[in-house]
């Protein structure tokens, strides 16, 4: 497993700032270790250099001391021979010089004591004792030289030999210890050099690994972000960034982006719904306009056609059939009225939609109104060879307070619908009244409607089927207007129907609006 993977897995939730701190800290620690090892190495070199100087100084001192001892012994032996042969005393200056020489020897001996430390302690002590003894004997020799009597003893040969031997031992010991220390220091220097090299190389390796892990983990986070933005931007509105995999700033960014995505998604979906609604409303209006155009053209065809035809016939020199002429004019007038009704329907619905339709209450006789409407519409019955049954419960009919014009239009629309969708059948108009309301039913034996069609039949711009307008004419406005008028008068309308078994529309209107 690579270092980068380990770091990514160990610290999957570390923030970007945390990662940078960790990274910087690790590099600082590595740097400090390298510096420490390097300092240790230079200290060891320094030690080595000191030890070498010390060994050289000690060796010089030892050599000088040996030389001094030999010189002094030669002098003492010569003086001892002179004492035997002559009686010349030594001058004070000679004695003083000899004392100073011995002081120098004692001083060298003392200096030698400060080198070597504990390792040389025993050797030095023996050297010190024997040499001090030798010096003391030599001092006695000088002191006793000018005195009368036998010549003072020069020295004990053993003492000198002893001192010489001790000096050689110390010298050997010094050499041995110097070699030992040099070896130890060399080992240390080699070790620190190795540690420095290994530390430096491993520092570079670890730093590279950390940099790689840092780049990799940050890059992975940013790649997830980028992929999310790209996916969402290209229209995948449900895509969300896996925010669990990042902590800190990038996690926050992912979470914020996801929240924004959710809001945008909602807004876009809302907008799409609104647009779909608007499209569907537009489509309905276009369909409605096409139907209106069709419906306007049908009566206009009769009006223009008959008028042109009559004009042609009049311009001929032939005798005009007055009865035929009268009938043709009636057709033109009827078509013109149909056209007017259609235009009024469109205007009514427009008024209802914009809330400008007024209701004007008055007291009138509903029974008289119904009879009048049925009389006026009787020509419609003949078109499809239908018959009318008028069934008014006159005993219980009273005057009512409502909008006469609206009630008239309600019944007219229901009646003409019944005629339109029924062929060679029966139209039944019934009415009865109780304390509260007038109930009018218009029933036919026509094509009827399925339950689905019944649900939509009162919607504006809608007919039972898309092609109902084509088959039976009408703009799909009549029943929409009827329902709105019923609501305005404080009542309602309902329908009962089965396909091919006719339809029954029941209208209830309050007798008094209060």
């Amino acid at each position, binding site marked *: 497993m690579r270092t980068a993977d380990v770091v990514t897995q160990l610290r999957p939730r570390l923030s970007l700032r945390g990662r940078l701190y960790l990274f910087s800290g690790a590099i600082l620690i590595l740097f400090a270790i390298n510096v420490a090892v390097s300092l240790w190495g230079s200290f060891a070199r320094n030690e080595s250099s000191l030890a070498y100087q010390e060994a050289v100084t000690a060796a010089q001192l030892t050599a000088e001391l040996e030389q001094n001892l030999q010189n002094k012994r030669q002098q003492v032996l010569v003086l001892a021979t002179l004492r035997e042969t002559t009686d010349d005393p030594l001058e004070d200056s000679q004695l003083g010089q000899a004392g100073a020489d011995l002081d120098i020897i004692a001083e060298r001996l003392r200096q030698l004591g400060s080198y070597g430390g504990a390792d040389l302690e025993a050797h030095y002590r023996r050297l010190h004792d024997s040499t001090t003894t030798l010096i003391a004997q030599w001092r006695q020799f000088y002191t006793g030289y000018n005195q009368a009597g036998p010549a003072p003893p020069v020295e004990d040969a053993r003492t000198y030999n002893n001192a010489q031997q001790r000096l050689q031992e110390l010298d050997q010991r010094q050499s041995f210890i110097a070699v030992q220390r040099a070896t130890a220091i060399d080992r240390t220097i080699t070790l620190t050099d190795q540690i420095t090299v290994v530390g430096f190389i491993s520092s570079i390796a670890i730093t590279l690994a950390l940099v790689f892990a840092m780049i990799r983990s940050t890059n992975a986070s940013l790649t997830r972000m980028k992929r999310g933005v790209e996916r969402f931007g290209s229209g995948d509105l449900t895509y969300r960034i896996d925010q669990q995999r990042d902590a800190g700033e990038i996690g926050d960014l992912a979470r914020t982006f996801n929240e924004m995505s959710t809001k945008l998604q909602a807004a876009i979906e809302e907008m799409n719904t609104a647009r779909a609604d608007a499209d569907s409303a537009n489509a309905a209006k276009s369909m409605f306009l096409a139907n209106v155009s069709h419906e306007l053209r049908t009566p206009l*065809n009769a009006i223009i056609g008959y008028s042109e035809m009559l004009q042609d016939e009049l311009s001929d020199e032939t005798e005009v059939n007055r009865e035929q002429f009268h009938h043709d004019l009636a057709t033109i007038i009827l078509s013109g009225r149909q056209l007017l009704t259609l235009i009024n329907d469109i205007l009514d619905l427009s008024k209802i939609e914009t809330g400008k339709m007024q209701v004007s209450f008055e007291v009138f006789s509903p029974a008289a109104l119904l009879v009048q409407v049925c009389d006026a519409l009787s020509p419609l019955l003949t078109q499809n060879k239908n018959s009318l049954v008028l069934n008014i419960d006159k005993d219980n009919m009273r005057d009512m307070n409502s909008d006469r014009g609206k009630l008239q239009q309600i019944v007219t629309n229901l009646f003409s619908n019944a005629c339109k969708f029924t062929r060679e059948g029966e139209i039944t108009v019934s009415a009865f009244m109780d304390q509260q309301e007038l109930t009018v039913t218009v029933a036919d034996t026509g094509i009827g409607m399925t339950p689905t069609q019944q649900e939509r039949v009162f919607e504006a711009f809608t007919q039972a089927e898309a092609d109902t307008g084509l088959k039976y004419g009408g703009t799909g406005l009549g029943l929409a207007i009827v329902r709105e008028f019923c609501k305005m008068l404080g009542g309602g309308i309902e329908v009962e129907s089965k396909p091919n078994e006719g339809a029954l529309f029941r209208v209830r209107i309050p007798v008094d609006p209060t």
Partner: protein
Amino acid sequence: MMTEQKCRILLVEDNEVNRNMLIRRLERAGHSVITAADGEAALKVMREEHPAVVLMDMNLPVKDGWTACREAKSDPALSHIPIIALTAHAMEEDKVRALAAGCADFATKPVDFPALLNVIAAALNAHS
């Protein structure tokens, strides 16, 4: 050269007022007119009477004009008779739809009668 042929025309129209009006005007123009009130009847009359040209309303009960037109065009005995669509559906897509059903030409309501006579003559000439 287009000529004013007099011929036998089948008028298919369910609206009685408009049907009567067109019968009278076509007859005054010298044509003889037979009628049908729906698409099914129209096909039957075409087979029995062999009219020279058919004026067909498209919104018809029983079988609509588009269906009747397609059936006539796929019937070898009837396919040679030119059918002129005569409809209150005056949008451009309505014309396309009528021509796609096999109509030879397309006239809208309200009828421009002199233009309709020209369309009939053109259909007869194209056929002959």
